[in-house]
């Protein structure tokens, strides 16, 4: 609000179109809010925030002052909308930190607690209309090997010669992975489980294709999105080889009582319709030193997280002592999410 007054006196210093648009927004808002106050008891602060927010810059290019203003605008708006004190953190990357994640595929029991914990922490849309989950757990079959299951006939049958690769019923064939498994109890005897989320690639294809650079990789290795700058073109969704990105098809449904008020600008703050979102390694937690929600919730301790630049961190110890692989390493995306086995 104090910014509004100063813009009136500084209109001869309009240096760019963006400034012009912002101050134009101010004038409109000033008159609008005045009118609104006369007409009804509506809160003018809300309208003001929305206009300024609409014409704000890309977060990364804001000055510290502008970032602070953007954050305050959001805090006011969110606190009002969700009826509680919402904080929006703007913590930048931590010095000397490169985040890494490791998941013990041998331990995972497929209980999907991580999926739901992520939703509880990160303010995703929920409900039947539009459900967003950043983690997907696949059920992988261990395969079937039985004498009766095999195809011993030749191909073509009358020639009686079995040609490689043409058996109708290959033994031990496995499914590609089930997304919608729902047994009474997990783990099942004949399956293992494979959770997937954003791999926080070092060379993220999603960042490369973004036409407006709204998604970018911070120095601590987290690929983030400025939700206010996203134009919703979904190129990143097409480019991501891990299917890690989700889109807010409609206005997200986030009940007030379930809303997590501790948020980060680039992380779990409430999103708007028409923008892309994804796992941020719980940036609002991890940049404050706290473990991610999925690491904490895993009831079997299959998830490990830490600083790749610290030789004594648990993630480095996993890399040093366990058998590690990365998903789709052939794509040279250099994920910072590792899978391992004991």
């Amino acid at each position: 609000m104090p910014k509004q007054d100063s813009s009136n006196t500084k209109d001869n210093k309009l240096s760019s179109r963006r400034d012009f648009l912002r101050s134009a927004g101010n004038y409109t808002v000033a008159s609008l809010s005045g009118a609104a106050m006369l007409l009804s008891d509506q809160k003018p602060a809300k309208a003001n925030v929305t206009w300024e927010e609409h014409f704000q810059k890309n977060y990364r290019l804001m000055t510290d002052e502008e970032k602070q203003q953007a954050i305050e605008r959001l805090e006011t708006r969110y606190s009002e909308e969700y009826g509680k004190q919402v904080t929006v953190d703007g913590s930048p990357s931590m010095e000397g930190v490169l985040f890494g994640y490791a998941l013990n595929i041998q331990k995972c029991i497929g209980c999907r607690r991580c999926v739901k914990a992520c939703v509880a922490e990160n303010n995703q849309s929920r409900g039947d209309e539009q459900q967003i989950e950043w983690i997907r757990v696949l059920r992988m079959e261990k395969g079937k090997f039985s004498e009766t299951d095999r195809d011993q006939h030749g191909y073509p049958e009358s020639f009686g010669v079995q040609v490689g690769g043409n058996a109708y019923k290959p033994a031990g064939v496995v499914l590609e992975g089930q997304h919608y498994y729902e047994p009474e109890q997990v783990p099942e005897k004949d399956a293992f489980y494979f959770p997937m989320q954003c791999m926080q690639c070092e060379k993220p294809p999603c960042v490369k294709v973004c036409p407006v650079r709204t998604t970018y990789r911070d120095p601590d290795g987290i690929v983030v999105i400025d939700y206010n700058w996203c134009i919703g073109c979904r190129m990143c969704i097409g480019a991501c080889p891990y299917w890690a990105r989700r889109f807010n098809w409609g206005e997200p449904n986030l009940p007030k009582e379930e809303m997590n008020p501790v948020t980060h600008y680039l992380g779990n703050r409430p999103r708007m319709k028409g923008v892309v979102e994804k796992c941020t390694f719980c940036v609002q937690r991890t940049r404050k030193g706290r473990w991610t929600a999925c690491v904490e919730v895993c009831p079997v301790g299959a998830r490990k997280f830490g600083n790749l630049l610290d030789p004594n961190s648990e993630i480095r110890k996993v890399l040093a002592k366990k058998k590690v692989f990365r998903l789709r390493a052939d794509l040279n995306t250099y994920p910072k999410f590792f899978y391992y086995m004991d």
Partner: protein
Amino acid sequence: MTRYRNHQPLFGFCLLLFLFTRPVLGTENQADKECFESRDGMSQVKVRQINPELVNIKCSSTTGGVLWWGDPFAGTIPMGDMDIEADYSNEEAVVKPREPQLDRNKMLTICSMACHDGNYVPIPHTKNPRSLKMHLDTVPDAMNLKHGKGNIWCLDCHHLVDRTKLIDNFGYSISFNQPQKLCGKCHGQVYRAWRDGIHGKRIGMWDKGGKKRWWVCTECHNPHDVEQEERNSGFAQLRPEPAPNLPKGMVNADHERMHHGAHPDE
């Protein structure tokens, strides 16, 4: 056997105490919602408000599992010493005491004091495993000791005369709160991995020097049956959280349950 019979009145007293204390706990359970952290039934926490804005835990409405900790260190105590100096020596390491979980009705204390003091019920002369004749209702997995596949028995782990304690190789007692000291006797490799933080689970602060709540062995594993038979997973089965919603326009997911080949089975 005769000695047992002589002291039945005392045993009856124990039972009475047990029955008396249970309903009290029961009403408390109803007042607050209770969820489990890792092992259903063996790691229970009650939901409560830390402050008007913050709850201690958020639970899954479908499975009753804890999903989220408002305060990861609530109800913890210092972990105590480990047998070697390492990184964690400089960090604040806490654990959630196991005793209140394992001894919810204070039976163990009573048992130790009342009967199993080494005299009243004597220490067995041989280590030959035998099946329990009594306490089948109160001893967890009384007839189902899978651990060690018959090569170990109760008193290899439990203290001979102090039922509230575990036992180490030298006969000294180990607190239920520090089962790692017991398990590490045999599972050295896992113990080392656990000490490094790459086996098991920790919550709290990931950063160097940050406070961490370490989870101890029995918070995740059932010590009487770790392998869980042919699943060999180390964990008891749980009800999974619900599957994601099907994509718009899909009515079922039958297609992903069909196998390759010309003859889809099942």
